[in-house]
């Protein structure tokens, strides 16, 4: 799976997350008046929407890395983090909506076309920030948090506007919230893919074996390579490798690969090395694995 198709998969997951979250959101919204307080109502609503979107994004890593047994754990952890992020996002977004809405309501008399859309967009942007940060928190990656926050912010903004204007321009259109949620999901997914590339210092492409064609963005300070599914580059099908075979660290802006288990030989451009600064175009052989370092 190339980086392009990984990006498409994450985009699709964002879409599906929005799709699945929508009925749940409608159900809770429908019973709004039965809740004792806005606090309880918004916490539950945000938690459920966040959990569903978080679950879909959480499964992304397992799907794109083709390590199927990573999926359930990613899904559950994504749901858990998303649940917290969603609840916080709904509350902070609501506070923003009431604050901004209160001010706009006073400054512009046009509630329908200006006050509500603008306030809603800002509220949604805040909600999006929290939902988008979830996936980064789950994978403990500050860069992914930053990426998700930006995607969530923009997606929430656009989604909030879309929600409000689709309701205004198409009276009787019942799917307006679905539009908003799907846009939010797509934007977060799009940004995960898009900015991950901009923030990476290259791509590692697996050249042969079961994961042939799979590409990994190098976005972290440390990338672990080995058979264990915990590694950023997990190669479980390459039997001769150790659980943690090698790692790549960024030193002064340049990636350096180190062989951590000398019982398996590592060659970079046919030279046996223990540690080597990587240049674009380098060919790495570790045991049966062949990896090509290329520009993202």
């Amino acid at each position, binding site marked *: 799976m190339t980086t392009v198709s990984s990006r498409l998969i994450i985009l699709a997951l964002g879409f599906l997350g929005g799709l699945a979250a929508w009925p749940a959101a409608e159900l809770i919204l429908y019973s709004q008046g039965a809740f004792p307080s806005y606090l309880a109502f918004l916490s539950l609503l945000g938690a459920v929407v966040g959990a569903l979107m978080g679950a879909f994004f959480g499964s992304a890593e397992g799907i794109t890395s083709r390590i199927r047994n990573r999926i359930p754990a990613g899904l559950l952890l994504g749901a858990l983090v998303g649940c917290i992020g969603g609840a916080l996002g709904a509350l902070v977004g609501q506070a923003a909506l009431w604050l901004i809405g209160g001010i706009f309501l006073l400054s512009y008399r046009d509630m329908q076309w200006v006050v509500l859309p603008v306030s809603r967009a800002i509220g949604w942007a805040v909600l999006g920030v929290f939902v988008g940060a979830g996936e980064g928190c789950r994978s403990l990656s500050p860069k992914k948090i930053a990426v998700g926050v930006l995607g969530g912010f923009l997606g929430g903004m656009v989604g909030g506007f879309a929600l409000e204007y689709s309701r205004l321009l198409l009276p009787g259109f019942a799917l307006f919230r679905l539009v908003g949620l799907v846009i939010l999901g797509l934007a977060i997914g799009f940004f995960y893919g898009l900015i991950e590339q901009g923030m990476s210092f290259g791509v590692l492409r697996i050249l042969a074996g079961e994961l042939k064609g799979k590409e990994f963005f190098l976005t972290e300070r440390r990338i672990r390579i080995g058979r264990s599914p915990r590694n950023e580059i997990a190669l479980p099908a390459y039997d001769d490798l150790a659980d943690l075979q090698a790692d790549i660290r960024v030193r002064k802006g340049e990636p350096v690969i180190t062989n951590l288990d000398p019982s398996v030989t590592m060659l970079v451009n046919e030279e046996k090395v223990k540690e080597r600064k990587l240049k674009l175009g380098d060919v790495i052989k570790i045991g049966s694995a*062949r990896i090509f370092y290329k520009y993202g």
Partner: protein
Amino acid sequence: MTRCFFLGVFLLSVAAGAASALTISLSQIDSSGLLLSQRVNAYVSVTDDQGEPLTSLQQDAFTVSESADGVHYAKLPVIAFEPSAGANRGISFLLVIDNSGSMYDTPDSKPTTDPAKMKITRAKEAVRAFLASMTNPQDKVGLVVFNTRYRLLARPSTDRERVASLLDQITKPVPDEAYTELYGTLKLASQEFAGVSGRKAIIVLSDGENFPYFTHTGKPHPDYGTRVFTYPESIVANQEEGVTVYGIDFGVEVMDKNLRTIAQETGGKTFEAARGEDLNGVYAAIHRQVAGEYLIGYRATTTPAEKKFVQLSVNDAGKESTATRFYFSSIVFGLPLHSLSVVLIIPFVLGFALLWLLTLLKLERRPGPANLEVLQTRIGHPVTRVLPLSATKTVIGGSASADLTIVGAPQVRQEHATILFDPKDKSYTVVGSGDITVNNQPVKTRKLEPGDVIDVGGATIVFDDSKDRKQEKK
């Protein structure tokens, strides 16, 4: 700095009813506690037919109701009641005094040279009396004068002596400064409360209409240029800061027709003090009214609505009065649908079904036949990206007759490299006629392993032979 945003907005009606001898006025709705404590606070004042505040009413005299549509109201229990909330917490006043030319006439609008007969002198005396009557150490007071120009003399502070001494600085304006920028002044004055918490009130004393400089002279205003302020701007600015505007009409002929609206929409009212006799009394009445406000807190409903109407009623010995305002209650997710349908289950199930399908996608790679794949080229591009190796001899080069053609790359020879199949040991060997590298090492000929990277004049080509690898393993 924490600014308190009061979300109470339009004063929809002060349904006082002229016959009723009781008037309730809803000056502020503070819904800032809605999210965390579900609480809304309303500040109300109740006056009798003389305009005198009634400050000794009990909690049971008030009823609070809320409505999502402005039609159907539900009565809600009062959870907090504080009489004289203003007096207890201190009030910040900003005294705004008209210093236009006509203020130097007599109360009957006759020119005079005797300062004692001038309206401005009466106004200064009334302000001094007002300052002297302020006994709550928490009360603050500030001073602004205006005509064509806006002039801040003191921001609201507890230093009342200073304000009293500043009154002497008010002098008669030159003719060009004798216009009345009432609306602009009220907008600017609201900003003087920035950073001040608690109850805030402007008391504006004017003897005429809004009379903008630019409109009447055609010349740009020295501060505002060609900008002319409108009265809704003054309303909005004061509502944003949570400032209540009280107006004192000190003229004989025309009171500004919108000053009453500005006062009403900010929760205040206007007083007539023509001829100046009762001016001291008016200032005192305003102070009493603000100080005598009741704080009434209630637990809000969660009924879906973009805005909620709050209705406060008072009933004192059969005399009744009601006031209504609304606050913003929109939910970030929007209003619920009118009805739910079982069809909603479809997107939910569909989302998860497609997720499951994605997890099945290309998880396993089936071993394929030996092939070459062009990963990237420095210059030019390949005609085919993936080429299965079926023949015993495969030519890579720039020639159109090559098996794998790289076009547009001058450094690639017509027949740059050849891959030969050896049926004996089912192996492939690359032979270069031009310069080639395998795994970045220059070679002339080399037996290939799966995953080897061949560079042919800047084109990066991967060789793979999964079947071969499986056999090797066996």
